[in-house]
């Protein structure tokens, strides 16, 4: 059955050949949630196979499984017709599978030659031999990199060349590129494409992950679209268009059914927060937008678009540039917070995207987590703890957010992801903020809990609070927002009224 499916979508070049790699019915489960589910993926020698999908669609999970960084929960991993099971990346590397990461994994203080040999060092190395070998390898690839230069001094494009040379040095037959062009200039991209074609001509199989759909269409032989961990389609690139890809990525009908429509009424009131030309390093560049009381503003954008950073800048957790950093006004008054505490005292809240890293206190029970939120504010502080106040507060939020009350006496770390997220919400909302930033409010949350969180977001806006929702998940943005902003490379590039926003329009703005 699997064979039949792949025959349909066969690239012309590989008709008679066997796939070098095949994942059959591969699934990976994290804590009960499928990161990828029942994915059938194959790769032929001398093929460039692009993987596309939204953030969280399962692209990197699939690639990590292929590169041996994680193991599939179920399903077969077949290499050269034999079932394999890689325990660690080193095993996969030995089998000729190499992943070139987004953030380069080179050691900056070592020279290019040393980096190429890294992990394969002999007991004694002569620098001269090493450099000559590296020079020969680099020249054979047509890379103009001095093998004796420390990698930290090289530009991004050259670093990538060193990474690729390392892959070739390791006799890679399968190379996985994760967003290889993200930090390259247009000229460098052209050069990079030449290189990919070169590798293909040598019979190397290439998996190519990119957010830029045009690039995938241009360079790939075949394209696989993933959505919510499932494989939507694998087809020759020639038969696909940009629009078709977007449609496959979004999966309109499914999303509509789960998330329902957008709410109809919304009363825009006072303008409470203005962000004007805010700049922070390379992450946020000249970002401007406003937020009004009583509305939900959705900020869509890919990872790295500056959406989380701007929320943290407003909240005082990150600092914008001191010179030409732009202005942030709270009800007309310019603000610049040194620490989040000041923002909290002014009624601004930020609910983290990574609750495990910095959202809750894992040794404490639900009630204590909620209580400590209010204790940390000026209004709610009292020197002595009060059990009565703690219970009253926790009861209110447990009830309002429908937190599983059976688990009140359990440490929060033992709760489900959805309940943890609700406790983080309660801890923040107990501080009675008037402007609330939600960063990925339903990441890692079970499906049953998502409607509770969305209902709370709307309720807060109806109570007259200004709510900003940052999410990678477009159906979520469409479901909760009154107004939608799209961030790309540190700027707000588009604004839609919820009434005429569609996933296609948002995605188009976000990727190009």
């Amino acid at each position, binding site marked *: 059955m699997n064979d039949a499916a792949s025959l349909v979508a066969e690239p012309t070049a590989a008709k008679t050949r066997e796939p070098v790699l095949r994942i059959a019915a591969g699934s990976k489960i994290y804590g009960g949630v499928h990161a990828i589910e029942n994915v059938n993926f194959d790769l032929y020698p001398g093929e460039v196979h692009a993987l596309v999908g939204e953030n969280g669609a399962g692209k990197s999970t699939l690639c990590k499984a292929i590169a041996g960084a994680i193991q599939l929960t179920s399903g077969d991993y077949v290499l050269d017709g034999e079932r394999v099971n890689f325990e660690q990346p080193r095993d996969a590397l030995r089998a000729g599978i190499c992943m070139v990461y987004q953030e380069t994994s080179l050691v900056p203080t070592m020279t290019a030659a040393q980096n190429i040999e890294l992990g394969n060092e002999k007991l004694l190395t002569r620098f001269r031999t090493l450099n000559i070998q590296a020079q020969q390898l680099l020249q054979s690839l047509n890379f103009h990199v001095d093998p004796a230069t420390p990698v930290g001094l090289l530009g991004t494009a050259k670093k990538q060349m060193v990474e690729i040379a390392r892959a070739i040095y390791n006799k890679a037959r399968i190379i996985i590129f994760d967003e290889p062009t993200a930090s390259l200039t247009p000229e460098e991209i052209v050069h990079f494409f030449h290189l990919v074609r070169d590798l293909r001509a040598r019979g190397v199989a290439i998996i190519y992950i990119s957010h830029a759909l045009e690039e995938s269409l241009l360079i790939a032989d075949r394209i696989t679209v993933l959505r919510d961990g499932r494989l939507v389609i694998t087809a020759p690139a020639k038969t696909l268009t940009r629009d078709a890809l977007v449609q496959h990525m979004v999966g309109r009908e499914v999303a509509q059914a789960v998330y329902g429509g957008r709410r109809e009424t919304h009363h825009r009131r006072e303008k409470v927060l203005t962000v004007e030309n805010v700049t922070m390093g390379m992450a946020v560049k000249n970002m401007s937008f406003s937020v009004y009381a009583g509305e939900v503003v959705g900020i869509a954008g890919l990872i790295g678009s500056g959406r989380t950073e701007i929320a943290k800048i407003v*909240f005082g957790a990150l600092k914008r540039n001191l010179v030409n950093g732009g202005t942030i006004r709270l009800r007309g008054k310019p603000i610049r917070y040194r620490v*989040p*505490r000041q923002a909290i005292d002014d009624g601004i809240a930020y609910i983290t995207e990574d609750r495990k890293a910095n959202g809750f*206190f894992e040794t404490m*029970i639900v009630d204590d987590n909620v209580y400590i939120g209010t204790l940390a504010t000026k209004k709610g502080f009292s*020197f002595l703890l009060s059990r009565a106040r703690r219970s009253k507060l926790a009861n209110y939020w447990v009830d309002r957010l429908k937190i599983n009350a059976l688990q009140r006496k359990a440490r929060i770390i033992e709760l489900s*992801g959805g309940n943890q997220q609700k406790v983080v919400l309660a801890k923040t909302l107990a501080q009675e903020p008037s402007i609330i930033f939600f960063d990925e409010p339903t990441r890692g949350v079970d499906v049953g809990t998502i409607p509770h969180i969305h209902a709370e977001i709307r309720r807060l806006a109806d109570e007259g609070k200004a709510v900003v929702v940052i999410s990678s998940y477009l159906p979520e943005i469409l479901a909760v927002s009154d107004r939608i902003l799209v961030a790309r490379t540190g700027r707000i590039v588009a604004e839609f009224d919820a009434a005429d926003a569609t996933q296609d329009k948002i995605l188009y703005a976000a990727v190009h």
Partner: protein
Amino acid sequence: MAIESPVAATEAGHVRLNFAKPNQEQIVLLITIVLLVVFGATLNGFATVSNLLNLLRSISILGILGLGMGLIVISRGIDLSEVAIMAGSWAIGLIEVQQGMPPWAAVLLALAVALVIGAINGLMVAFVEAPALFVTLAAGFVIYGLAFWFAPAWVVYAPKDEPVLLFLGAGRILGIPVPILVFAVAAIAMQLFLSRTSIGRFIYSQGDNPEAARLTGIPLRPLIVLEYVLVALLAWLAGLVWIGTTGSIQMAITQGTMIFDVVLVVVIGGISLVGGRGSVYSVVVGCVLIGTLLNAFTIMDVNSEVQNIIKGVVLLAAIVLDNWLHPRDEETARQGD
């Protein structure tokens, strides 16, 4: 989850304590009880009132220092200068008494010296953001040097005719040595502070997850300074008991292994180096275990090298236990997602 002991019950309301595995305090308490029974049955003169009081008296200085160290370790810090603060502040205080300063003023001088050093430690950790381990290690050397400069003697004697000054170390109330009572009162006060006040709760949250505490709006920097000042305060108190007990302050202790004994009682009792875990109860249990071992060794006449080996092994065992109870790897970090 059932609450196993009455002591845990009093703090469970405010602290947290809900372990799937037995918690470390309970394991250590059990070991201590077993040891007490075994030594009581096998060693002559162990299970007498006077020996047991002596056992408790011998651990009270370690215990008071342990309360301070416990506080700082709960907040994910460490203070290796605690013993040096104790010795240094009192060496300066006592030398002034020898030169004619009234004892009450010397007591306040020692207190001021201790608090200033604590505040400097705190400021370095909180604002310069230097690692606590190195800040306090360096502070220990600086204090040692400064104290020697002001009080150039290995041993600085306390005046023998000041019973009030020596009362906390040498006195008895109803037959009970006062150091035990000082330790008990300090422990109760610390327990109330940690479990019944919001500052105590903030200290736990800082140790649990400093970044989450920052994003929740807890004023971390002032909190850190306060923590190091409190450690210094307890070091000063321990010094007051020390001079009463021995009649002098010995600068040699700043160069010895005493500070590691303090860390030992804290870690054994279940105050995890990970932060945010354990309580005053941990310090008390850890002290009693170490006190029991040392007391039995003294009766058995075990030499100090063997004692050191056993102490080292116990510390290692405690750290292994801590790792087992609070594993920190990727898989556990991912649970609940």
